[in-house]
């Protein structure tokens, strides 16, 4: 057999041509709703975490440094501004709460079994999401302690 014959054979094959692909539509929805990792929610904790750490280091442990003083005076200035005063509960309670919810949904799955009238809660072992959830919760608890929301 000549090389050209092989080429002709390859070119004239009756190839499988998937016409209708029913699963194409079914795959599209989960594909596009595939959530990126909820770890991105971590950045929402940055501001409250900095403040919490500053308070702990400065007032609870009695440490002193110019860096802590700068942070303290920055947030004290914000605290003194009447407009920002309204934002403080949102920043220190609202954002960590949001982080908690996002991460909770990443490791907890809720399924309603209608036949048995049951709500099945499955907890996935996702250490990072669980750790972020607990950290966000501790930040909220910290700021809910008396006298923590003002400098």
């Amino acid at each position, binding site marked *: *057999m000549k090389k050209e014959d092989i080429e002709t054979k390859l070119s004239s094959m*009756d190839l499988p041509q998937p016409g209708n692909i*029913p*699963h194409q539509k079914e795959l599209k929805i*989960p594909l596009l709703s595939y959530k990126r990792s909820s770890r991105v929610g971590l950045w929402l904790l940055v501001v409250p975490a900095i403040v919490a750490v500053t308070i702990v280091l400065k007032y609870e442990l009695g440490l002193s440094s110019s860096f802590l003083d700068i942070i303290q005076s920055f947030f004290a200035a914000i605290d003194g501004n009447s407009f920002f005063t309204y934002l403080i509960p949102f920043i220190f309670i609202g954002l960590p709460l949001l982080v908690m919810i996002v991460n909770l949904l990443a490791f907890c799955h809720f399924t309603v079994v209608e036949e048995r009238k049951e709500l099945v809660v499955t907890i996935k072992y996702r250490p990072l999401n669980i750790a972020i959830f607990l950290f966000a919760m501790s930040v909220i608890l910290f700021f809910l302690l008396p006298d923590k929301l003002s400098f």
Partner: protein
Amino acid sequence: MNEEQLLAEIESDPRKFGELYEAYYKNIFGYVFRRTANYDAAKDIAAETFLKAYAGIGKFKWRNISVLHWLYRIATNELNKYFNSRAYQPVSLQRIHEEYGIDITDYATAETERTEFEEDLEKRREFLKINDQVKRLDTKYQEVITLRFYEQKSIKEIALILGKKEGTVKSLLSRGIDRIKETIEG
């Protein structure tokens, strides 16, 4: 479809990726199915290809080269993994399964669809015979032969998809055909 414009829209609204999916899923699934001749593997590899493309669409820069070529490249890499390992692991699909507990390739219509595809494939005996010979070749020959003869891509397009020089593609194509000839004659 103006792909350049669509890519810009995807940057601000990732869900617009659905338009690329609608336009090209058939090409990619068809390509993978022809190469594997296996419905389940094709389904997994095509889904993995689009998941990877969806996750990495931000890295694709428009240079007057269709996204389809990029999708072919991702699919080809996945096919290489499939052919080079006994147990193919679609990483992104597995991650979704582990993290969210869902198998996005578990379609309601999967069983009926598989039967239809397999029945259709069995009718194409000549294709199956040649495809078996192609599958025995080194991956580098399989890639160029299938893109040329299964997907009817030009040498230039194959070079773009595989990131190789046109001369290299021509040479691989010629040597791949020689190998098939040897198999038939031997």
